Each structure stands twice: as structure tokens, then as C-alpha cells.
């Protein structure tokens, strides 16, 4: 390269850096503003001209949000729902995926197509009939209704079947000779081999469940049965324009998932990128 080319490459590098830094700052503005506003007083939050930093940072917003709303309930319901919607789909999907990948049986193709075809249906299509079902069972306004319809995952079944199919059959053949039944082979031999895919599914399910709004909003209306998502959506009607309280609630709702994301960055990014390719 000539000297001129090198210096122009260096300039371009600088321009790229500046564009990326500005964009990254823009992406972070909502998070920064959430935290700053949550520490302000009610009047300072809506002051004109704008106060960027709280003059006397206070945790009043956080205390009010926890004391005045059903926040502890939101938390417990969200955590419990997320666990149910993660543990059961992982177990059930991996079992089914193994059977579809390895045990040839009559009707396997048609049953598999049947299961994965529901991935094409937009979620709201399910909600009215599911609501009617919950109503028949007397489960409207219960924590059970938050997770009972999501104990299985066609997407996880599809993904894990792909993974099981790439594993060589030799290990299993040895186990068959030792007298293992298919469930033992699945549990002791196959499951540990797809650990990375299981981690991806755990993350996808946790994230979907934690952030989901529409179903919790439809099925439960009493505050003690709400999740963080549907709960903070109703904070607005309780606190109106008391923005520090609203921002404190929002911050407490997003923080657990963000901490998990920072710890498991690689798994999060790969897992969610996987799920985008589900078609």
C-alpha cells in the first residue's frame, strides 16, 4: 500500500469509530434516562429546562413502587412463571425431539409436521380460545393460567431434533447392547451431548417468558396475579405522571434479565440468533 492509501484507511477507521460510538450512545440513552429519572424528585423529573442529573438523588421512587403496588407479587409471579415455562418445555421438547430424531415409528413424520406447523401461527390467534379454556377450568386470574398453556415448545422440539440428528449412532448402539431402554439412552447419553442447544433454549424461554405482555394482560386482571410486564403496564394508571416511581418500577423489572445477559452474553446472543432462524 502507498502512504496515501494507508492514511486514508486510517481516516476511514476513525470515521467508523465515531459513527459506532455515537450510535452506541444513542442506543443506551433510554437506559441512562431510566436510571437518572428514577432517582429524581417528582417535580425535577418534569422540570423545564431539563435537569440531566438528579440534584439530590433519592430512592423514594423505588420505595414507593414497592410499597404502593403489588411489586413483590409481580416479581414472584414472573420468576415462577419463567421457571415453569423453561423447565417443562426443555424436558418435554428434548424427549420428543429424541424420539423424532432416532426412534422410527408409524406416523412420526406427520406428527412432527403437525407439531412444528403451529410455529407459523401468530400468537394472538391462540388467546381467545385459550382464555375460554381457562375460563371453563376456573383458572382466569390465577398464577397457573400464566404458564399452563406453555409447557411445551414446538420450536425447541424442532431445534433439538436437528441437534440429535447430527450425533453419531455408535454410542447408542453400544448402550442398546448393554440393555438400555430408549429413555435411558436419551437421558444418560444423548442429553449431555446437546448441552449447548439446551442452554440456548433455556435462555430463549426465560427471555420470552420474562418479557411477554399480551397473555398475562388478557388472562389476569387482579394485581396479585400479574407479572412484571403486565404489572408495570398498569402502574401508569396508579401513579399517573409520578415518573420517578414509574422509572424505578421499569428499572427493577429489567435488571434481572440484563444481569443474566451480561453474565451469559455469548449464550444469549447465540441462542436468540438461533431462534430467529426458526423458519
Amino acid at each position, binding site marked *: 500500500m502507498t502512504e496515501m492509501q494507508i492514511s486514508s484507511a486510517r481516516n476511514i477507521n476513525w470515521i467508523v469509530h465515531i459513527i459506532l460510538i455515537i450510535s452506541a450512545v444513542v442506543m443506551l440513552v433510554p437506559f441512562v434516562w431510566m436510571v437518572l429519572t428514577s432517582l429524581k424528585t417528582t417535580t425535577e423529573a418534569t422540570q423545564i429546562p431539563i435537569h440531566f442529573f438528579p440534584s439530590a438523588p433519592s430512592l423514594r421512587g423505588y420505595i414507593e413502587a414497592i410499597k404502593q403496588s403489588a411489586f413483590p407479587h409481580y416479581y414472584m409471579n414472573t420468576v415462577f412463571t419463567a421457571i415453569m415455562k423453561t423447565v417443562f418445555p426443555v424436558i418435554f421438547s428434548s424427549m420428543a425431539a429424541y424420539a423424532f430424531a432416532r426412534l422410527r415409528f408409524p406416523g412420526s413424520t406427520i406428527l412432527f409436521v*403437525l407439531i412444528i406447523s403451529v410455529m407459523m401461527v401468530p400468537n394472538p*390467534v391462540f388467546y381467545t*380460545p385459550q382464555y375460554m379454556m381457562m375460563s371453563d377450568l376456573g383458572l382466569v386470574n390465577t398464577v397457573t393460567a400464566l404458564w399452563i398453556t*406453555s409447557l411445551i415448545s414446538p420450536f425447541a422440539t424442532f431445534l433439538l431434533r436437528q441437534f440429535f440428528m447430527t450425533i453419531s449412532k455408535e454410542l447408542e448402539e453400544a448402550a442398546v447392547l448393554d440393555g438400555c431402554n430408549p429413555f435411558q439412552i436419551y437421558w444418560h447419553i444423548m442429553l449431555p451431548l446437546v448441552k449447548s442447544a439446551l442452554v440456548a433454549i433455556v435462555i430463549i424461554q426465560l427471555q420470552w417468558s420474562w418479557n411477554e405482555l399480551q397473555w398475562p394482560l388478557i388472562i389476569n386482571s387482579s394485581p396479585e396475579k400479574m407479572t412484571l410486564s403486565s404489572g408495570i403496564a398498569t402502574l401508569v394508571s396508579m401513579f399517573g405522571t409520578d415518573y420517578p416511581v414509574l422509572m424505578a418500577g421499569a428499572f427493577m423489572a429489567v435488571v434481572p434479565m440484563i444481569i443474566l445477559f451480561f453474565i451469559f452474553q455469548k449464550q444469549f*446472543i447465540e441462542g436468540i440468533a438461533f431462534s430467529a432462524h426458526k*423458519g
Partner: protein
Amino acid sequence: MNSRSRYVWAYFMIAPTLIGTLVFWGWPVLQSILLGFQQSENFGLVNHWVGFANYEKLFRDAEFWQNLRNTLYYVALFVPVTLILSTIFAVLLNTKIKGLSIYRVIFFLPQVTMPAAAAMVWVVLFAQDFGLINHILGTRVAWLSNSNYAMIVLVIVGVWGAIGLNMLLILAGLQGIPKSLYEAADIDGAKRFNKFRYITIPMLTPTLFFTSIILLIGATQIFDSIFLIIGKTNVALPSVRSLVYAYYQNSFVYFNPNYGAAIINVLLLINLLLTGIQFAFQKKWVVYD
């Protein structure tokens, strides 16, 4: 192991997923289609068959067409903007730049952020009097209650949430382009722009196509941000109300599950068509690979 006992094990292992799918997802799809042809009392306790009456009413309802237009308008703005910005960032990050992993994490952060929580801070940022955005722009725009601007707000919020993931998908596509193509072009003395135009863009087309279909399908289902940022009492709601929002409103606010079902079944049809297109092209491109 004989085949009889293998069948028994197989059915045992697929049973939870199969039964769960049929009961909670399969049957509801059929029921949603049935509800569209019925008139129910007491939210589904008593159902009368009414044929196409719900759809006739729907297609004569100006509000439905407005909602369909709103949805398509959102899709038409959100998908290209997300795709273009994601591609630009992917190209910038594909230059062996320092700090790739930090940018990746920052751009991905909105993806793991609860939409309900993000919506609340966007309301504050876009506020007319004390909002940071008007302050920086030096304007006094009523972003959230002006029917011309409300849609732009929804697009900005949507793009903010979607860039991280799509940038990564496109970056993976860029890294899959064989280096030898660029080396050959270098030998021929090709300019930077021409390499981008004649190698990068054509090689990236399949990735861009699939990314845009995934974005399209997701965007047709917009609900959260309308519900949270615009809200039911906002004068700008009619100019941004989507099909899913109308479905929610008719089913669970006006308690007319049949009219709601008719609306959501239209969306089901649109989504099946989009998925069909995706499958058709997937086959074509897989063969060429």
C-alpha cells in the same frame, strides 16, 4: 429391542409435546376459525352459526381497513429502516474494528429489555414539554398525541429494539462470504465501492431476504408498543391501531370474541402467505448453495 417396544417408548416420549400442542395450540387455531363464523353469547358459552356475517361486517368496516393500512404502513417503514441500519452497522463491524464485542453487547441490550419497561422510558423521552428528544432537537412536537408523529415514534422504538439481533444475523452472513472473491477482485484492481456493489450485495441477498421475512412476520403482529406508548385514550390511536390491537380491543375490551376472531384470522392468513413465500425461496436458494 423389538419394534413394538420401540413404538411404545416413542409414543411415551412424544406424548407430552403432542398432547400439549393439540390441546393448547392446535385446537385453539381451529376454534379461532370457527369463532369467526359464529356469534357467541357470554364469551363463548353459547354459539350460533352465522356464516360469513362477521367477515361481511369486517370488510364494510372503515376502521378495519384503517387498521390494516396502519399495520402495513408500520411494516413498510419498520422493515426497510431496520434492514438498512442493521446492514450498515454489520458492514462497519466487519472491518476488524476494535471493541467488536462491546458494540455487540450494547446494540443487543434492547433485545433483552422488557418492552413494557422500555415503553415507559420512551414516553418520558418523547414527552412534549420535558422530553429529552424535544430538548435536543429544540422543538416542541407532540410526538405521542399527533397522528402524524405517533407512527414515527413506534417505528423508532421498534428499530431500537430490533437492530442488535438483525445486525448480528447480517454480520454472520457477511462473514460467510468467501475471502477469495475479494482477493480476486483486488488482483483485478477493483475499487472499494465496486467490491461492495458487485460482491457483497449479491452474496448477502439470501441473508437479507430471510432477515426481512422474519422482520415482516414479527412486524405484522405489533401490539405491545401501541398499547404501552400510545394507549387507549390517546387521540392518535386510530392512526396507529394495528390488527392485533383491534383484535385485543374487540375481544377483551368490547367482549366480542367473534369479531375479534375475524380480525385475527385475517392476520393468520397474511402470516401463512408470508411463511409460504419464505419456504418457496428457501428451497430455491438452498439448491444454489
